[in-house]
């Protein structure tokens, strides 16, 4: 039997399975119908077709409210949910039953709290993971999918859809996906994009670069440049870690300052130029700086202004 025949056979089974489930819900169904259904079920392939439908129905049953709302989010403890979202969800629920015309772009705002990661499940199966304190704005319709990273860091897993390009706007640059997984870090000074899978185009006012897996682009002031990196390092924050390979201490401290409320400064140039390789667990500034002391010839002092790191 060719593969096409097998597929066609499977499709017929699914059709029959659907017909059985509907027929047996009808009040007219008889004991003879159930007996016939039992005979039909003795074929394991038929049972599989029934299971496929029932497991999908179980998902519907477990997420009833989701089937009236356009976007679902998994909230971390204390995460914010905007009132706008709730209102839109209700409006969308009404829309679903009243009129099913193509919807205009819907917009959503997401913010991660300062102490937790937030994962947003996109309606097309993709995900948006916001790092601590990140804020993103989403515009969603059947023709366009756009995310604006207002601040902080976010990892995207984008399902390619040629009818609805996925774009990300982060400060001075725009990203356009080709079906991919990438991380975007926006700091006051620069935007860094790291691609783990697939490819995307990153554009500044001046030029466009095509990035593929393992490429990292940095837009710093007016310059846009790229280099090769260990892309998975850029995603480690999702597991609560920061990974460095021969990074200057100044870059490490810049990262730590994104995670803690206590400002950390480096007192001398020699210390700033030290190179660090290793893994830091995201924790309080004091814990993370003391970890650095264990690896580098530095000491940290706590004062009223924060933490100061100097050579020792």
């Amino acid at each position, binding site marked *: 039997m060719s593969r096409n025949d097998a597929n066609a056979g499977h499709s017929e089974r699914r059709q029959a399975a*659907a017909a059985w489930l509907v027929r047996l819900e009808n009040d007219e169904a008889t004991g003879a119908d159930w007996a016939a259904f039992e005979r039909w*079920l003795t074929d394991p392939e038929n049972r599989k077709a029934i299971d496929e439908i029932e497991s999908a129905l179980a998902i519907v049953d477990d997420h009833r409210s989701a089937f009236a709302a356009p976007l679902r989010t998994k909230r*971390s403890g204390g995460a914010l949910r905007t009132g706008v979202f709730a209102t839109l969800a209700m409006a969308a629920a009404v829309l*679903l039953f009243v009129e099913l015309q193509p919807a205009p772009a819907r917009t959503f705002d997401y913010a991660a709290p300062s102490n937790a990661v937030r994962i947003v499940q996109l309606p097309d199966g993709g995900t948006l993971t916001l790092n601590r304190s990140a804020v993103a704005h989403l515009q969603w319709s059947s023709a366009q999918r756009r995310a604006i990273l207002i601040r902080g860091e976010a990892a995207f897993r984008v399902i390619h859809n040629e009818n609805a390009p996925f774009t990300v706007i982060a400060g001075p640059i725009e990203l356009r996906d080709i079906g991919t997984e990438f991380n975007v870090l926006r700091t006051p000074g620069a935007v860094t994009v790291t691609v783990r899978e697939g490819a995307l185009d990153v554009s500044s006012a001046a030029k466009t670069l095509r990035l593929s897996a393992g490429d990292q682009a940095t837009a710093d002031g007016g310059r846009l440049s790229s280099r090769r990196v260990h892309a998975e390092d850029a995603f480690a924050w999702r597991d609560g870690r920061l990974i460095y390979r021969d990074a200057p201490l100044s870059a490490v401290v810049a990262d730590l300052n994104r995670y*803690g409320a206590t400002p950390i400064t480096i007192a001398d140039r020699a210390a700033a130029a030290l190179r660090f390789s290793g893994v830091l667990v995201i924790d309080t500034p004091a814990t993370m700086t003391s970890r650095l002391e264990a690896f580098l010839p530095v000491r940290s002092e706590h004062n009223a202004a924060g933490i100061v790191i100097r050579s020792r």
Partner: protein
Amino acid sequence: MADTDSPASPLLAFYLGKRGDLVRFFTLRTSSPAEAEDIVQDIYVKIAKHAETPDNPAAYLYRLGANVMIDRARARRRSSARDDTYSRAFRVETPAGEVTVDAPDPDAAIDARQRLARVMAVVDAMPPQRRRVFLMHKIEGVAYADIGARLGISQSAVEKHMIAALKSLADQRP
């Protein structure tokens, strides 16, 4: 000890005669003889006080059992989701506040969300009338006949929409 000699209600008598068939059927449906026994026992509990005999007692018992089966599966999913939340929740206590990563097992959590997203995409892609029928029945719990009356279509048209809806749900599985 009154009534010990009185016959069971007709439905109960019918159930007792049908018990073996029901166990066999639900063993086939659940792949578990123990689960089937529990379901058939639950049917008994539900009909024990039932005074009237439905028109079609066999179909009634099977449908009752099918509902019990779905309820039990749902209860299991809920309790396992709760267990997962407790056992896999990943919390780091720090003086600065609690760091909570809300996907302790990001891949598993993402898988579950992807399955949900796929099902939602199928529902979104249904033609409007089919989606309306499907959601009225599955979310609002409206019976086929009442859906037909509300939408001004025949019950058989409602059933055709439901069959197409269920088929498309099966088709989204890889």
